[in-house]
């Protein structure tokens, strides 16, 4: 049985694993597999987004006041960063497909840089929240130190609920960013070492799909938390 076969063209040597018949079947399997995994990720964040909508529906005026405690500028900067990283990620996939390893590596490194940029901005946001005691544990101080007038009308429990949701959702997203950095880092290392493992562009493509999903989640988190109407 054909343990190894190469793709029809010379430029793109893709190894066909022994359980598959040909490269098309293998590539399609990877894609369907990755997307079915992403379905679980959708449901994963879906629960949180659903809980968010429910509480916001219940406590809309309070949530509106609370959203003013978040920094819209930082949110916007982070959106730009993530969109840019998504763009460099597709470039990495593109260069992987046409076998331009150096360009692929630079695109990947830039993506990682963006991911770190995102985390740094997040760090400033989080540390400010901790600084003014807005983390919903017993140290929570209410009304908020940095805007007592606005938040005086908001009941403390609802404020804690808002920040619970905020930290749960952005925290889970942050964990996904960290996982993405690890994946991208490992991939860049392998590309740099010219490993045969990453000759197949599908590896880059899979990690790309994951990274775009992380971007996708932020696309929804950004308006939900930072752009709240009255």
């Amino acid at each position: 049985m054909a343990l190894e076969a190469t793709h029809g063209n010379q430029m793109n040597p893709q190894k066909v694993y022994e359980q598959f018949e040909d490269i098309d079947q293998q590539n399609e399997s990877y894609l369907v597999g990755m997307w079915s995994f992403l379905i679980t990720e959708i449901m994963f964040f879906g629960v949180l987004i659903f809980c968010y909508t429910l509480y916001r529906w219940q406590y809309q005026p309070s949530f509106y006041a609370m959203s003013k405690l978040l920094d819209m500028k930082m949110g916007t900067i982070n959106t730009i960063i993530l969109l840019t990283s998504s763009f460099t990620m597709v470039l990495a996939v593109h260069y992987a497909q046409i076998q331009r390893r150096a360009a692929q590596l630079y695109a990947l490194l830039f993506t990682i840089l963006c991911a770190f940029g995102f985390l740094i901005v997040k760090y400033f946001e989080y540390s400010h929240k901790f600084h003014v005691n807005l983390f919903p544990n017993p140290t929570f101080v209410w009304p908020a130190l940095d805007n007592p007038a606005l938040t005086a009308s908001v009941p403390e429990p609802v404020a804690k609920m808002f920040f619970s949701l905020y930290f749960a959702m952005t925290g889970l997203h942050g964990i996904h960013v960290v996982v993405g950095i690890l994946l991208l880092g490992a991939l860049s290392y392998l590309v740099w070492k010219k490993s045969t493992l990453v000759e197949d562009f599908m590896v880059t493509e899979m990690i790309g799909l994951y990274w775009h999903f992380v971007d996708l989640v932020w696309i929804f988190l950004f308006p939900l938390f930072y752009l709240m109407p009255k």
Partner: protein
Amino acid sequence: MSKTLDKKHPNNSHQEEVNYITVDYTMKSWFITKDHKRIGMLYLATVLVFFFVGSVAAGFVRFELTSPTGQILESETFNRMFTAHGVVMIFFFLLIAIPAVLGNFFLPLMLGARDLAFPKLNLLSYYLYLGGGLFGVVALVSGGVDTGWTFYTPLSSMYSNSQVVLTITAAFITGFSSIATAVNFIVTIHKMRAPGLTWFRLPLFVWAHYATSIIILLGTPVVAITLALVAVERLFHIGVFSPEYGGDPVLFQHMFWFYSHPAVYIMILPAMGVVSEIIACFARNRVFGYEFIAASSLAIGGLGFLVWGHHMFASGESYFQAAFFSLMTSLVAIPSAIKVFNWAATLYKGMIYLTTPMAYAIGFLGLFVIGGLTGLYCSNLGVDVHLTGTYFIVAHFHYVMVGGTIMALLAGIHFWWPKMTGRMYPEIWGKIGMLVIFSGFHMTFMPQFILGFLGMPRRYHYYHFAPEFQAYNVFSTAGAGVLAIGFMIPVVYLLLSLKHGAKAPANPWNAKGLEWEKTDRVPITHNFREIPVVTEEAYNYSIDDEPPIEAKYTKFGAVMEEKS
């Protein structure tokens, strides 16, 4: 065939055949295997260990209940025992058992594939399961949990002083193992079918596993994140369900049952797939209404997601929603009934051979019908207010889950044992074991229906307020003893058959299907010597087919002439 292997088996006059077992004997080759068949066997061994752990916990619970004031345990320990029973049996046994053992082993064989689409992911899923299981064991040993397997908030998030976080971590990791298996199955079923194997030629086992995988994909992450939110509430006070923060604990129940009702179908659908295979084979009849059974699997999968509210009729959801979910729950009975009627119709005018797997499959029908019909009582809004939280519910879901899943698992293991191990099991002991399990099962759970109807609440340690319950409880505990003996019987003779069983031919039941007709006696590592081409429908049986192997060969020590 390689001669070198003969040295290890000097008694064997024949050349040792190379198959997935004999290809390598080292321990290491088993633990880093990427062969779906070996991974299936690893799963089999592991789920049995967890089944034993869960059974021991159940034994304690049953023993406690023989007296209205308890026997040996503190009430706190009693709570931990029934929680341990629930958590271990559901998260580490029932959800895993059939898909990961029989599904892993037979899906590629039935599809005519050399392996699952992602063998490494398959191995990873096994180790995730093992890791999750170890977390679970650590949680049990270090004090256990007392919240019940449902982890309802705010008991689990604010009041409980037990290993909630560890147990949740265990369930979380095991969930990812399920997801990996589901992804594998979906891709394999979509992309790796043999030439000619169209969707409506697939065995119903494959359809059932497809529906199961979809449910796992859509449901498991929901419960994973919901439980994770309970854990972060305990650890960091991030309380999405906390009434302290104006949250609604009933929301936890919504999210929990969004998965955990469909989880029942994760347990029962693969069982239905197994039973479809066996009934068709031993009735020598094409499954009646094949398309309907296939479609009803998907319908159960879909409808199963729209009924979760029936767990909350009495916990504060609005009446409007309760009425909606009551209706939807009644509707789920339709696809389930379609299956049962079609199995019965398959038996009609068939040539029925009452072998052990068939006996288990028919036992499954009986238990599933009782379990399903009592489920209809519970779906009824008014009746459920009386029955919810009583032993009636306990008996109901044990009839469905134990009666369904375990009977089907045993049926499947007996049916495919010759293919998995190359040995026959003793038919007479098989039937005895089946009868003991079947009667022990009824002895255990029939009294619980009565108990529940009389009003005995579940999860209670003492019932001194109603000492007349004692007789039923004692009877039920006695039944649990019979059940325990019943489960021992197959374990013993199946293990013995590995050494003393007659060598099985490639197709002892004269069954149809790629896994029987196109593989060796025991499949080789890549299953097929050449990829088969399918030209006929599934279950192309006729009552004139050769009968299954004669019972006299299925004894210990029997020697079978090689037919082929």
